[in-house]
């Protein structure tokens, strides 16, 4: 599975956005790739990482077959992991 990543611009982030991505990346090591999102690529998922509640990152320009998972707080890391896990599980069910 490939999950494109888009960060907000980081003008006043309330947590280390890069560290958050690393934690998520580490959890899904070998199962999900997390490249930085590019246009003209279709991703399975898109992860948008904002630094505060305004979460102003632009992401409409990127294509994803599945959900756009959006986070803007350190406390969301667990939620994001659970969300991606459930998407993986659902995909497996579909294949079976």
């Amino acid at each position, binding site marked *: 599975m490939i999950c494109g990543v888009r960060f907000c611009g980081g*003008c006043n982030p309330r947590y280390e956005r890069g560290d958050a991505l690393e934690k998520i990346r580490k959890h899904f090591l070998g199962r999900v790739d997390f490249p930085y999102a590019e246009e003209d690529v279709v991703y399975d998922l898109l992860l948008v990482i904002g630094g505060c509640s305004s979460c102003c990152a632009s992401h409409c320009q990127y294509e994803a077959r599945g959900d756009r998972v959006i986070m803007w707080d350190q406390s969301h890391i667990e939620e994001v992991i659970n969300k991606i896990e459930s998407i993986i599980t659902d995909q497996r069910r579909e294949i079976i």
Partner: protein
Amino acid sequence: MLMTAEQYVESLRKLNTRVYMFGEKIENWVDHPMIRPSINCVAMTYKLAEDPQYADLMTVKSSLTGETINRFAHLHQSTDDLRKKVKMQRLLGQKTASCFQRCVGMDAFNAVFSTTFEIDQKYGTEYHKRFTEYLKFVQKNDLVVDGAMTDPKGDRSKAPSQQEDPDFFLHIVEKRPDGIVVRGAKAHQTGSINSHEHLIMPTIAMTEADKSYAVSFAIESDAEGLFMIYGRQSCDTRKMEEGADIDLGNKNFGGQEALVVFDNVFIPNERVFLCEEWDFAGMMVERFAGYHRQSYGGCKVGVGDVVIGAAALAADYNGANKASHVKDKLIEMTHLNETLYCCGIACSAEGYPTAAGNYQIDLLLANVCKQNITRFPYEIVRLAEDIGGGLMVTMPAEKDFKSDTKVGRNGETIGDICNKYFGGSPVTSTENRMRILRFLENICLGSSAVGYRTESLHGAGSPQAQRIMIARQGNIEAKKELAKVIAGIKE
């Protein structure tokens, strides 16, 4: 095509820009210790554009070509673009604690773009087409452009055409079939030496008598007849001291201003965007000033973030961080800084499209933003000095802290003595305490105070300029009517 930070620095070496300092020509100005920190600041605008963690603010799709460009070369297409401009400036202020110099060009692009459109509508000229082509060239090559407005101005009580010396305002001295020749100067130009190009605008609204002063054009920084004289900053020669580090406060970054002199410089027609249409000089000035007053609601806030952080660290290192008055001062600094940010965001959110299609900020709110900028950074540094303590200006030099000259009865060195007596809380080393206090000294009254204090006061127009605009935009008559209705006055 986006340049890397390294490519930007190398591109400066290819220019033949004439730079003078301390009465002499500086041949290798790119590596000069007094100039290089300001180049590093501009380089940061390229470096962050390469980083996915900052690209959402630093890059954008060009409205002219559809290509990805640095936001500093962008024409704002929405209020979201205007807000992201402010956020980008806050980010760069945080990363440099200095003026990063590239905003004047961005603000000039947007002002000249919309004004030339309206000049062409009235006079049937082709300035807008010329400027659009020029901007495509800038975007394609990812250039730094100094948006240059401020003339030396001579006797402030007189119009350009009434000055004793006609060169006190930059003016057209000759019109040729293929272009114009200009003479004069632009004063205290931020980042001029670090710019590939200059985009010149008039400095005030004009009358017909001043029409030869109503001129806007673009020119290469190393054009024939153009040269720059570097502006001094408080404590600037500390940067020339061998091995200087801690005493500089901010070793890697700094601002830059220069006098840019036009000694009969030829400008080809395709780079002329205003030529004697005096009735549009005021519009160009007002629009540029509006954008630039918005800009300060981003850049100075970013620097303020670093100042607040430094004051909080100084409190930690002094062992004063638990004192209630120190906590309250940090709250006050934050309140002042975020108020400035509110102003920057508000004037952006209330922006509107010009006839040319790019977005202009709300003028009243942008002027309120800048008026606050003329005050709040002064209070922020006052509080920072209060928290930091007098040591930031009485401490011995870095060389003393590192000296092994024996001075004590038991063989203690000057370094031993300094490190002993200037130690603070055990949470950190004496050196770290010295570093943060030197940073505060630099930003409060050293070379960086040029950018954080005096530039906040006079940059983008002195306080009275904003008060004039606030008076014009303040809608007092409508407010009187509101009061009459509430008070039951019928007249």
